[in-house]
């Protein structure tokens, strides 16, 4: 189905199901319980999971398939965001023109930057992309402030022209919408002690992300994808066959840049503010880390990596000492303080430590990233069921 093998179709359906059920999956703990701290099923974070997942999927088309490690993909994210916010300011609050322009503009920049950077390979390529991104960030932060609004970030304003939209009736800023369906509208499902939030913006991102995933699946399985893999395994040999690999790598670069631009556009559509920090080298590095951590060249890995890092950033950083005290209040006083002290080093202001340790542990223990971890667990179960012949065979 959809031009996919049966196995891939099943895979795609699983991904779709998981994406649609995310509001349930990420809110496993009742709202009033102590563990609700670990719930991630609120709109802003779910949106980020989908958006950064999309970005990592796109990045993986370049890095995972061709092996070209770009350290400047955040620039395309930023360009996409700025393009989208400018569309909201000038044209209309409808998200479609915004994300389309974001994708196209990022693609255009990717074409130029890629054309220049791909003249070199290996670390020379990485540094070229890094240099372009860092220049974009620094200029956006200072000199280009009339276009980017510098440190504060580009925001909407009531006085913006928005030529396609009706004049504003209320004094509050308009909200990005899809033909009137506002991105920030949500409704809540109360199920006993649980609350599940369904947000229009999240589902919009989810649909785009699934489309992006489907496209990447098709690319992975296509002759084009095969060619990209050939570049990774031995570019020299490929060149000796008389084949010019540059157009292929450039195409992969532009595609992944467009993914990043689309992600940037979506970020702006969910929260119409575009900050320059989105383009900093640390942001580029974050995408690289997401991909490596999840598993380079695997389909789902980058998405898992993205989810993991965003989860740490948003959930671990919010656990402070008073929350820890409330968790461990059942311990005797002295012990409680000691346990809280230890945990406090890894959460709240210390959440970076957890992140750093996780990077190290994952790369040491799971050379193929999180996906390999999943495969190992799956293998473990499979072996168990083989060991126990009395178990009912899988249906």
């Amino acid at each position, binding site marked *: 189905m959809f031009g996919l093998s049966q196995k891939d179709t099943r895979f795609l359906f699983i991904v779709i199901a998981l994406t649609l059920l995310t509001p349930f999956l990420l809110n496993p703990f009742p709202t009033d319980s102590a563990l609700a701290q670990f719930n991630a099923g609120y709109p802003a974070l779910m949106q980020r999971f989908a958006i950064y997942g999309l970005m990592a999927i796109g990045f993986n088309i370049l890095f995972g398939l061709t092996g070209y490690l770009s350290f400047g993909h955040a620039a395309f994210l930023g360009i996409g965001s700025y393009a989208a916010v400018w569309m909201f300011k000038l044209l209309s609050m409808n998200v479609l023109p915004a994300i389309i322009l974001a994708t196209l503009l990022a693609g255009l920049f990717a074409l130029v930057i890629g054309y220049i950077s791909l003249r070199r390979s290996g670390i020379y390529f990485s540094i070229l992309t890094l240099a372009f991104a860092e220049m974009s960030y620094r200029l956006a932060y200072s000199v280009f402030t009339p276009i980017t609004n510098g440190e504060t970030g580009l925001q909407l304003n009531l006085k913006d022209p928005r030529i396609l939209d009706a004049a504003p009736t209320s004094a509050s800023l308009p909200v990005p919408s899809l033909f009137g369906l506002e991105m920030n509208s949500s409704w809540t499902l109360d199920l006993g002690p649980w609350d599940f939030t369904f947000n229009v913006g999240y589902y919009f991102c989810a649909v785009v992300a699934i489309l992006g995933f489907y496209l990447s699946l098709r690319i992975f399985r296509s002759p084009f994808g095969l060619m990209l893999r050939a570049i990774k395994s031995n570019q020299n040999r490929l060149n000796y066959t008389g084949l010019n690999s540059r157009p292929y790598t450039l195409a992969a670069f532009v595609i992944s840049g467009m993914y990043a631009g689309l992600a940037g556009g979506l970020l702006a559509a969910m929260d119409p503010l575009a900050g320059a920090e989105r383009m900093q080298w640390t942001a580029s590095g974050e995408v690289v880390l997401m991909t490596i951590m999840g598993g380079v060249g695997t389909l789902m890995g980058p998405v898992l990596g993205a989810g993991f890092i965003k989860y740490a950033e948003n959930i671990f950083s919010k656990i402070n000492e008073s929350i820890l005290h409330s968790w461990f209040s059942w311990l005797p006083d002295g012990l409680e303080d000691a346990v809280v002290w230890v945990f406090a080093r890894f959460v709240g202001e210390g959440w970076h430590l957890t992140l750093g*340790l996780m990077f190290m542990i994952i790369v040491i223990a799971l050379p193929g990233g999180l996906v390999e971890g999943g495969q190992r667990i799956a293998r473990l179960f499979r072996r168990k069921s083989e060991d126990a012949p009395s178990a009912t065979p899988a249906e």
Partner: protein
Amino acid sequence: MDALFLQILNGLEKGGAYALIAMGLTLIFGTLGVVNFAHGALFMIGAFVAVTMQRIFNFSLEIVDATQKDFLGNPLKVKVPYVIEWFGDGFGGFLIDWSVPLAILLAIPVMMLVGFVMERGLIKHFYKRPHADQILVTFGLAIVLQEIVKYFFGANPIPTPAPSDYRGTIEMAIFGLNLSYPVWRLIYFFFSAAVIAAVFAFLQFTTFGMVVRAGMADRETVGLLGIDIDRRFTLMFGIAAAVAGLAGVMYTPILSPNYHMGMDFLVLSFVVVVVGGMGSLSGAVAAGFLLGILQAFASMNEVKSLIPGIDQIIIYLVAIVILLTRPRGLLGRKGVMED
């Protein structure tokens, strides 16, 4: 004219720092083939060795003085550093005043040790792994090291002044121009030149250095000759760490150390190494000084008013131009880190 000269001096001093950091990085690239994202953290740890030295000398005896009050109105605890208690104002005061230069003595063994532990404990398991894995693990390590330093020293910059005799400026007459320039910055330039020269001499004139150079060129063949190249590479890692650490120690009077200074220098040092050419020591040094001086010039008002913001992007702009005109940087060799 003297403004130009001052900028050249600024560039030399900046370039000295870039070159020292980049040299260690390129040594590790060249000998071990490892992309070390924790190299900036080594620079930062070096700076904090100086802070630690200062703390050690300022370790104080507390005497409650009822005549003075602290901010809550309680009797003030007057602190007297032990070194002053033991050695008197003269020698004790000298130790405190000179804690930054004296920290060099502490930094060499400490940084070598840090380097050994890092290489034996972590990096050596990653020689055969893809560069992506090396990046992830060393980046993780950099974050962990930085958080540990933050826990002990806080996030605020810590003042670490140079010895009081070297805090001021020196008057110089060069080509008939009267310049005054901070003494410590000149010291830093000469110090970095000396360290660079020492590393070159070590690699050029010792058997050990010869083996390492051979290993950089062709690791397998050297291994086949029955030479234990791994042990030498461990030492090389230690030396690279020590060079970065020394750069950090001596830099503290110029830049008050804080826990994330390593990350600030990390990207820059990668750019320097790559512009110089992968695996080329002299390339890294040349690129360090070149970028330092160019950055100093770009920061001048006359240049900034022509091209606004040029001082912020000059390094990256130069990197792009050089990499496009010289495929392997200034002095890079073919085939190193190109795939």
